[in-house]
């Protein structure tokens, strides 16, 4: 997707976001006339929220940063009403963004400041509205439920908006983004809500002197989150670095690897493999030939038929690939898939001559995708010695080899993916 199109889609969504924020803001101000009631609590919570807001965690390279100021904003909402909380949230967000910009000597991007303000206003506004459902009820028995409603709605709205905007910027699927977010922090999210609940309890019980202690769990959560994000980023960086090494040492091109990875993921989803595992198939397909780093590239480039000895040398690559990947704990699921990606259902494959039932389905998917892309040969720069086939010819060839070289079910799923394109609805 071109960046101009992303910009255009983004700006359309941003307009919607601003409208939503404005509507919610007006609704909250109308429902709760803003009056400052509890000044001491405000005096404690605003600096804490500002502190939390000015320590963002960078989650990925798209520049997604999140801050953990919700418990304190929720505290303000509980002690002084949602309208004050909304106003405080907006002021704190703006102050933190401008202050951080000054500290880092960067120009403050007004666009992203606007986005952050919009998200903050929408989340706080929606949460304030949710609180309104408890207005007539008895504050003693329903107080905690009301506070939790604020926290949960704030959390959910904020999470969904941020993941949605991030999926627009990164051109990743929204559902994938939500899953990623949940995977990084389900327990964290629960703890976060618990901390917010504790803040609410302390305020309700009048123990505001203990509020600053709540900075400890928030800071610990922040540290954990940033380390998790580092692990997560490191995974992709390792994949990228390994595939770069492969491209430097062999005639394999980046585009071939990307296409195979994409096809393999689509086929995996078509075959009903869960999305998380399908993403691992994608990574495995990207790295399936990593063992070719250790193979003589002049043999790989050779247009003529290989001698028996040269074949034996090339055949080592699936074992080598498994050996390289087995060094990393995070790739341990992929190792058997990579090792078996040249096994055949008729038991004539290498390196271990596995029988049909012994070959992982993921390896079969990678084998079919790789063979297809080699036959169709998308790029003109590769495999100049062979004229590329059309899509129909390639699929017919795959069908011909189904049962001996390839798994018939995988080939059929693959044919569907190629015909219909992409994943099923």
């Amino acid at each position, binding site marked *: 997707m071109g960046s101009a199109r992303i910009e255009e889609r983004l700006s359309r969504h941003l307009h919607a976001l601003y409208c939503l924020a404005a509507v919610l803001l007006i609704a909250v101000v109308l429902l709760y006339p803003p009056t400052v009631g509890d000044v001491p609590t405000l005096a404690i919570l605003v600096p804490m929220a500002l502190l939390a807001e000015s320590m963002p965690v960078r989650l990925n*390279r798209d520049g997604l940063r999140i801050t953990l100021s919700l418990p304190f904003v929720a505290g303000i909402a509980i002690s002084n009403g949602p309208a004050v909380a909304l106003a405080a949230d907006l002021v704190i967000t703006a102050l933190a963004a401008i202050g951080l910009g000054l500290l880092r000597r960067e120009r403050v991007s007004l666009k992203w400041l606007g986005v952050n303000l919009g998200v903050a206003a929408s989340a706080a506004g929606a949460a304030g509205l949710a609180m309104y459902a408890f207005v007539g009820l008895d504050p003693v028995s329903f107080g*905690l439920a009301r506070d939790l409603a604020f926290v949960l709605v704030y959390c959910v709205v904020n999470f969904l908006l941020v993941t949605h905007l991030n999926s627009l910027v990164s051109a990743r699927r929204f559902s994938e983004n939500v899953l990623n977010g949940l995977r990084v922090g389900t327990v964290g999210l629960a*703890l976060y809500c*618990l*901390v917010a*609940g*504790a803040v609410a*309890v*302390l305020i*309700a*019980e009048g*123990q505001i002197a203990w509020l600053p202690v709540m900075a*400890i*769990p928030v800071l*610990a*959560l922040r*540290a*954990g989150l940033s*380390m*998790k994000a*580092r*692990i997560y*980023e*490191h*995974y992709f*960086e*390792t994949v*990228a*670095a*390994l595939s*770069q*090494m*492969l491209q*430097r*040492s062999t005639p394999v091109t980046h585009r071939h690897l990307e296409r195979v990875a994409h096809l393999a993921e689509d086929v995996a989803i078509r075959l009903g493999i869960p999305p998380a595992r399908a993403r691992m198939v994608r990574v495995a397909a990207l790295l399936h030939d*990593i*063992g070719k*780093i*250790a*193979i*003589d*590239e*002049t043999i790989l480039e050779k247009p003529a038929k290989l001698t028996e000895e040269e074949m034996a040398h090339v055949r080592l690559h699936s074992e*080598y690939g498994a*050996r*390289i*990947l087995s*060094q*990393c*704990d*995070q*790739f341990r699921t992929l190792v058997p898939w990579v090792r078996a990606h040249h096994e055949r259902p008729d038991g004539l494959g290498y390196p271990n001559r596995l029988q049909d039932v012994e070959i992982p389905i993921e390896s079969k998917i990678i084998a079919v995708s790789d063979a297809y892309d080699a036959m169709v040969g998308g790029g003109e720069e590769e495999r100049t010695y062979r004229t590329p086939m059309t899509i129909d010819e390639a699929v017919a060839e795959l069908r011909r080899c189904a049962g001996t070289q390839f798994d018939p079910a995988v080939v059929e799923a693959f044919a569907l993916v190629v015909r219909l394109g992409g994943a099923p609805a």
Partner: protein
Amino acid sequence: MSVLSWFVVACTAVSTLGLLIYVRVILPRRVEERIRGSLKAFSTAIELRFPSHQGLTERVIALSAALGRHMGLRPRALADLETAAHLRDIGLCAVPYRLINEVPPSEWSGRDYELYERHGDISANMLETVPSLQRYARIVRCHHLPYLEEAAGYRVFGRSLPLEARILSVVTAYTWQERYQGDFLARETLREGRGTLFDPLVVDAFLGVLTSSRARDAADSIAVR
């Protein structure tokens, strides 16, 4: 305070404690493990490509760690040194397979040498594209640069090179020579290069480390392969 309030506060306290343990003890260890694992994958790939490099990285790491400790490097700098030692040769994947693996070794032309000598730069360029490894790019780029450079009548001393790079330069040169010519000639190479190819302080310290028995346990015989 009511029972419910106590319950919420107690839950928060307990889970905060758990969280603190997780964040301070378990997670850092896991991050470390992950990074170490992927570094190992890089050096394994190079050692599989060039079997003559087998075990070289292990030896370089052991020796440079001993040298770094002897020179009083801080734990963080030592860890950097180890990482850089793992990463120093990933650019070798761009060196042709035949150039190094041919038996018997062929005569290298000027172009072959040029190709080989570019590997430090290639490694560094690759590292620069990987955000979490960027800070090692400078060490890796400089680890084969000579200490003293004479250009246009000026003599430029390599104090500006990172200390880790100067250490690696000495240790890798020694390790390579040690493997093919034995400990004695390898030390001789270091003495010859002292002050021109290598930082004299690092060479002196390294010769001291080698003389102390602990660092030499793996190489006490003259290993001629």
